[in-house]
Structures are given as C-alpha cells and as structure tokens.
C-alpha cells in the first residue's frame, strides 16, 4: 500500500509553506484573506485530484476562483433580497 505521488492535501500544504515569505510580507488583514484562498481550494480537494493535471495548482487556483464566484453569487442574492425587502 502507499502512494507514490504526494496527495493534493500535501501538495497544498507544501505550496502554502513555500509561499510563507509572500504571506509574511502581506498586511495582517490581507494574510487572513490569503489563508481564505487556500481554505477555498481545500474545499475542492476531490475535484483537484480528479483533474489529474500535471500542474495541480492550476486546478487549485480554479477552485479559489470558483469559491469567489460562489460567494459573489450568494452576496448578489442577499442584496436582491434586501432591496426587495426595503422597497416592499
């Protein structure tokens, strides 16, 4: 048993560790957002794995974008609801 390649979870951990100097240089408030991007990627580990890409971080970036788009869609919906509520 055992895997030859690193898992997507390990790969994200390694990439995050490699970017630690980048993260350190960010403002504290931006660091929280930066961590959020990786959290977003980690919600789609299965999909990144299934993509079977030679460069899995490309898929991880897509996962981050996906979560952002989802958040925007949710916020848009909430804004619409609030507008309707206020206008009604």
């Amino acid at each position, binding site marked *: *048993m*055992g*895997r*030859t*390649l690193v*898992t997507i979870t390990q790969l994200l951990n390694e990439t995050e560790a490699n970017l630690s100097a980048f993260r350190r240089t960010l403002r504290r408030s931006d660091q929280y957002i930066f*961590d*959020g991007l990786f*959290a*977003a990627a*980690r*919600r*789609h*580990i*299965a999909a990144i*794995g*299934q993509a*079977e*890409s*030679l460069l899995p971080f490309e898929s991880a970036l897509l996962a981050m974008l996906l979560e952002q788009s989802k958040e925007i869609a949710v916020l848009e919906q*909430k804004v619409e609801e609030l507008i309707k509520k206020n206008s009604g």
Partner: protein
Amino acid sequence: MAEATGWLLDVYAEEDGITLWLLTDDDKRLRLRMEFVVTFYAAGDFSLLRQAWIYLKQKDVRLERTIRRDLFLGERDVMAVTTSDPANIHKLFGDLQRQFPALDYYDADIPITLRFIAQSNVHLLGRCRVILDGEWVQTIEPLSSPWGIDPTPIPLRILTLTPDCNPAIRKPRQLHVKYNQREYSLSLDSPRAFLISLKADLQRLDPDLILTDYGDTWLLPQLIQWSEETGIELNLNRDRERHVLTRKANSYFAYGQVTFRGAQAHLFGRWHIDRKNAMSFGEYGLEGAMEQARVTGIGVQEMARKSPGAGITAMQMLTAQRNNTMVPVQKQQVEGKKTLAELIRADHGGLIYQPIIGLHGNVAQIDFSSMYPAIMVKHNISPETVGRTTKGVSTSVGQDDAPEGLIPKALRPLLEKRLMLKNILSDLDPRDCRVETLKARAAALKWLLVVCFGYLGYKNARFGKIESHEAVTAMSRELMLQAKEVAEDMGFTVLHMYVDCLFVQQAGFHKPSDFTQLMNAIEEKTGIPIALEGVFKWVAFLASKRDARVPVPNQYFGAFQDGSLKYRGIELRRRDTTLWVRKIQLKALESLAHANTPREFADRVPEVMKLVEDAKRDLRMGRVPLGELVIRQRLSRTIEAYKTPSPAAHAARQLQAHGRQFAPGQSLEFLFARNAIGVHAWELDEMLDLGKLDTKRYCRLMDRAMQTIFDPILSHMFTWRLF
C-alpha cells in the same frame, strides 16, 4: 473399522503425517492420526534444478518433474519435492533454499491446515465423518460447508482463568476460575497448592478452550516456571506428547503506527486464547474468531491472535491450491512501468468529497455495501486480470470477459455470506437471542473484507499487484461520481462523500422511504448494492480547528430519527481521550439528540453548558474518580529515542526507574500532574496527591471537546440573528 462423526477442532503436523482432534457427537475428544504427504515446488534454471535434484536425492523425499501453473507466468516446468514428514518441511525447504537461492519456490510455506482442507474439503470447526483403523484415519468426508449460514453449534467446554489484577502492574494474589455457571478463586500465595488445585481442575473438566486474561504474557509462562520449580508436572495440552508452544513478543509497524504484540502460548489438542493478546477479540469475541477460522482455514488459536490480513492471505492460498495454482514463497510482481501522466492518473485513493461545514437537518446517509470487495468481484479485479498489456494498451481495470481471477474467486463466497448474515440480522427482532452471535460473525467477516483491498497493494502480499489496487480505487471513484450525479439529477444536495458513503439532503425529504427511489436509481446505475444507514434529524460536519473555513472529512456527529447517535473522528472516538471527557461529551450529545431540528439544537445549548460547568466543578472539588482521568497513549519508539519526550515517554521513564521495561507500540497510562514532568504514571504504586492533579489541563481538554460540539451551531446562530 470404526466410524465417528463430529466437529474438527484442530489439525497439526507430525513427523509421520498429521494429528486431528475430533469432538464427536457422543461428546468424546478423539486424537486421530492420518498419513499425509506434503509437496512443494522449485522452478528456474535447468542446470540449477538438476543440482538441486542431486542434493535432494540424499534426503528422504520423492522427486518428480511436472508441469504446474504460476498465476502470472502460466504453466511452468517444475521439480516437485514430496515428503511424508510434514513437521519438518520448513527445515527441508530452508536448507534447500540456502543451497539454491536463485530458484523460484512455490507451496513451501503453506500452513498444514490449509493443505489438509484443500485435500479433504473438511474445514476447521466443520462437521465430518471419519472411518478409523484404531486411531488412524482411513477416510474422512465433509458433512458441512464453511459457507453454511447456520453451522451446528459446537458443544465446547470452556474454562476461563482470570487473575485479580493486571500482572504488568502488580502481582496477582488470586486466579478467578469460571466453568459453566460455576465460579471460584484459587489463591496464588502457594504455587504448590495452586498447581495441585489447577491440575485437578484441568483433569476433571478437560476443557476444549482455556480462555484467559494475560495467559500469553503471564499465566502460562508462570505456570511452566512454577511447574519446573515445584516438580509438579502440569501439561496444559490435551496432547500429552506435546509441550506448550511459545512465541516471542514483537513490535511492528502497520497502518501508520507501531504495534506491540505480546508473547504467545499455544496449546495442542485444546485451544488457549488470551483475551488481552487477541487482536480483535474485543470486537467480535469467540464467535467471530471461530467464524474467521471456519472460512480462512487458520486454527482458532492462531486466528484469534492474527490480523485479518493473515486470514485473507490464507483464503487466497486455499483458493490457489484448489485451482491447481502454485503459491509463490516470495512476491514476484512489481509495479509496471508508467509514464508520469499515467502515474498521475492511477495513483489515487478513494473519493473524498469535502463536507459542507455546519449543522444540517434531515440528511440521509447511504452506504455502498462492502464496496471494494464488491467491485473486485463484479469487475473481476485480480492481480492477474489487471494491468495486462493488450494490443499495446495497458488495461487499468479488470477484464470482465477473462476467466474469474483468483481474488474474486476467493472473495465471492465471503461477500455473499456476509450479505446473507446482514439480511438475516435486519429481519430479526433486536431482542432475539441469535442477534449477538450473528453480529459477531458478520463483524468478523467484515474485517476480512475490509483488509482484502489493502492486501492487493500490500508490498509483501503474494498475490498483490499495485495496478489491481489502483483499479479498485479508480472504479470506486467512478461509481461515487455516478452516485453523486444520480442524486443531483433527482434534486438532492450532496453534503459529503467519503469513499463508499454519501450524505444527501433535499427539502421535504425526511422519512427513510423518501430516499428509496434515489437508492434504487444509484443501485441500478452502479450495479453495487447500497443500503440506507439512516436519516439524521440533524448532523454536524466539522471544520478544521486550525482554520474554521476548512472542512474536515469524516468528522461528524448526528442524531438519527430514533434518537440514536452516530459520531466519527471526534474526541469520543479517540482512545487517548480520558473517560471523563468522553462521558461528558457523550452526555452532551445525548441531550442534544432530543432536538429534532438544528434550531432545537441551539435551544439546548444552555443545558449542555450547565452540564459542562457541573463536570468542571466536580473535577475541582476532587469528586471525579482518578481512574476516569487516566490518559492512554502509545509509545511510538524506544524511550531512549525520544529527543523531546511525549507525556507517555515521561511516564515510561518514571516506571523505568522502578524496573519496568517498554517496547515500541506498548501503551501507557498516566495522569496530568502539576510536577516537573507534567505526568504521573498510573502504574506507580504511590497514588497521586489530589492537590497535584493538573485540573487546568483537564479543563482545557474538556473545553476542546465541547468546542467540537458547539462550533457547527455558532455559525448558524450568527446567520439566524442576521437574517
């Protein structure tokens, strides 16, 4: 010529055949003898084989050139070496292998029980009929099958021996003896008097099974020592010609951790099982160990102490023997060549779909039944059917049109038997007296099925090949995605998927019958049976403790509609959590299980908070028994190898000062204390002063366990206040 019928209890090798023990229908225990020859094979370079032939001609063996089947290489020209001395085949083979290491060897290390079963079709613990000439078996025929659902119960005589304390901690003063409904104690103060009493009991009761606590590591070695010291002869075996077989303790690395296996003491003619040294005895007990012995062909004493992996290997060997396939002594198959792209495609595990963090209402959990073995059987995945290059293309999945592979052939009856047992169980009233036995047997079979997949990829498995392992996971991921698509097509939200189970939800769906259509559709699409584990009134999927935005797979807790709880990956499931924390966390969940919706869950939070505060007050007031605060941790290496000692290593050092020795994999118990090293070993003779107990640390452990429960609801409470 005499005839006898009964149950086959044991088989072992002798210098002139084998010994069988039969428990007859008229309650006799017969020691029978049988002539039995064993054969192993050597293959390879012809000049080497010729030299080996000359070498073996001096020995008392029969040699023959023949053709036999290798699972991967097909028919091979081999030298068959046959001996009528099964007890010494290991020495014969060992000597030959040392002389001719370059030859390939087959069938040389097959346990004698498996050889006997393959030849006679009589299985261990099965019923059989023998025709005898004196004690010698002339013919033997099976009267039952290991795959029978309802085996005739064996009227075993069981003698239970338990010391009054753990001998590793302090010296036992008494031995509790139990036989049928009778119980009494024997004093250990005078070894002579004790041995005389025990010897008389053994002769009078003549048990088939001696069931002990610490029998392997303390009682049997101690009995042998006392017997030598006092000169009182005590043979625990029913077979008077044999001595107790002892095996040394060892530590080994498996499944990511170091495991310690204590010394072993095996008997001949009756069984000895040490409940404290039997691997899964706590899980499925004697009934389970007997079920595994019945289907694997490994003796009950061995099977109780071995991992299920050994059982699966034995089943594969037996299947190979029955199909005239040789069993290689060493694994021959290595991983095939792959390009990087192929490796990236193949090297995956099961599909783990991250859960949606938080508390969810009316969620159904659907499980594929024995998914991996079912895939192996349905898709004919076996090392010899997978990964073959056909027309230049490597087949990554089993060849459905190829003859049934060795692994599916070995697994099919096992899988069918477990499904049948589960079906019977689901139809029985929970109060039915058969339920416990059936559950134990089903659990024992489940463990064999669980490990059979791992053994496809295990580096030392004779019939393992990584490509077949990968083919199973590839198929499982595909089936899980198919199930997800079916669920989404029918309007369900898939909250979480974990290897072989799905958590789904849809507004308005809350009764088990609401999910029947979905299950039928998934089963039709995938061809693998599925079952509804249950419908949760509410279930919480947890976030990482490090970052609340990151979900953690397979960490959840929830309450089914009947109020029963299910929890995975939380403190309550961890062995290193103190009983005190586990009890309070369980009480908290039991209180929350009364909630029918996530909102009702939130309403119950104050009640749970009070429960926790009361528990902490009890701790500070010294009202929690110290035994409930004991932490149990395993040593992962030798004590000297720790650079920064773990609490367990500190506790081990404390005990080392009192002469105790520890091996990697052994567990230690200790309390957190306010002293220089922060722990107090539980086994120390002096009790910890209550004032020295590190209550703050225990409160932190409790807070952490409660945070696990409250975190999922906090985000909901926040949302409910906002919208």
